[in-house]
């Protein structure tokens, strides 16, 4: 059987011994080539889960295996094969887009780095921006640069934290379309955390619903809509977030 992109086993994180767990016994197996959505309200444990998957955060219990590598013992081997993008973690603002991409091409030991940068710039419409300082770009341009950084090493697994946050609908749609094409072309596995339900519905073939650190439901967007008898994922999300009993839901 092919090793999964991500295998989380009873993953638990407590920031303090006396505090409730931020993530509580979370287990899932995300297959290669899939796009999964991590949904949940603020404080549901999405960021903590992603941080543990990235090895930024040591779990209090349980185990994470990424692309076959145990993150407790062999995280650097996994990190070389994956990448991450978040609007909440910036790229150095004073250096140019090309310099930023060059830095990460070196950090990820990308062969033929300059060729890769030119290729990514063309794909993500960044060619005209390569010499501009990253801090002088618009939100949409910064998102595209962050995406280029996340793709510089041709990752087999991409973790995206709110990839279209603060983007206008047109740019957000462009990014979603681009991610769809990228996955189709490369077979890259994608795990994204998002508050944009339409985005999750469009991009994800499986959704993991988190509440207070635990997975409360999961399934394909279509299956969840059918299960909750709703027309869109936003309503499903609200049902779960507000703990509405299923019998109170519309038929």
């Amino acid at each position, binding site marked *: 059987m092919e090793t999964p992109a991500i295998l989380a086993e009873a993953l638990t994180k407590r*920031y303090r011994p006396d505090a409730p767990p931020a993530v509580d016994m979370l287990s899932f197996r995300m297959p290669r080539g899939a796009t999964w959505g991590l949904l949940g309200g603020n404080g549901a444990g999405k*960021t*903590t889960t992603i*941080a543990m998957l*990235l*090895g*930024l*955060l*040591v779990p209090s219990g349980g185990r994470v295996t990424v692309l076959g590598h145990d993150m407790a013992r062999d995280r*650097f081997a996994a*990190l*070389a094969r994956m*990448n*991450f993008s*978040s609007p909440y*973690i*910036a*790229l*150095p*603002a*004073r*250096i*140019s887009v090309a*310099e930023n991409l*060059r*830095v*990460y*091409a*070196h*950090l*990820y*030991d990308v062969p033929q780095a300059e060729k890769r940068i030119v290729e990514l710039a063309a794909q993500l419409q960044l060619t005209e921006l390569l010499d501009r*300082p990253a801090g002088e770009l618009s939100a949409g341009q910064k998102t595209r640069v962050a995406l280029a*950084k996340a793709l510089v090493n041709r990752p087999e697994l991409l973790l995206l934290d709110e990839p279209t946050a603060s983007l206008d609908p047109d740019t957000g749609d462009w990014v979603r379309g681009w991610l769809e094409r990228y996955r189709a072309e490369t077979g890259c596995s994608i795990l994204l955390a998002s508050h944009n339900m339409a985005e999750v519905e469009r991009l994800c073939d499986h959704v993991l619903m988190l509440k207070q650190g635990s997975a409360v439901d999961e399934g394909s967007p279509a299956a969840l809509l059918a299960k909750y008898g709703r027309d869109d994922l936003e309503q499903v999300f609200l049902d779960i977030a507000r703990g509405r009993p299923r019998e109170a839901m519309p038929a």
Partner: protein
Amino acid sequence: MNRAALRRIWGLVYRHLALYRRSWPRVLELMYWPVLQMVVWGFVTAFLAGVQNNTASLAAGMLLGGALLWEVALRSQMGFSISFLEEIWSRNLGHIFVSPLRPRELVAGLMAMSLIRVVVGVAPAVLLAWLFYAFGLFAMGPVVVAFLVALLLMGWAVALGVTSLLLRFGAGAETLAWSVLFGLTPFACVFYPVGVLPAWLQPVALALPAAHVFEGMRAALLQGSIAWGHLGTAFALDAAWLAAMALVFMRQFQTARVRGALLNIGE
């Protein structure tokens, strides 16, 4: 260290060099304090030399030599710590820590940046001392290279401690990056022998590599001899402090991973 590791270290160094290329105030800041120190100590030395009616005063050499060598330790520590702070200020640490860059490679990259900053910062001051005050740092002989290396290593040891505090307390501890080594100046015995200190303070001074370097510098300038004992002790202390601070850094890095501090190091 394999080729990929060297490339990752270069990636970190390249990021800082690119920053300096685009920020002349940062480059100016590198040279500002060493040059200012040299101007002040140059005039003090000229005054003392005049009082003694001896322009080739040995005191001049000790003051200028002390000021220049101590700048190496200061710039070495600041170069390392401030390069790490640059990553905090640019909110880039999250990306760095999820890349395959190992903590030891991060440290190596910061050491390389520190070395570059020392050369760029101190070289103009050395040139100034030679041109305006006729003081050649290398007049002490080749042993000066050993002094420079010993002080560079001490700066790195202190910087590892400061960086550990930054990992623990975030940018709230950043003033330490500028001040911590200044606080050690009285015990480093830059301008006076260790024997001048009260007896109870002397063990503190002798635990610092710098105090032995400056004893060695005075031996070179006053007696024209190499104080091998002090030099050896300086390097032994450097090794001990570096090993201890590296352990503290690694422990603090792991603690930061447990606490989740790497996600949001900031104020």
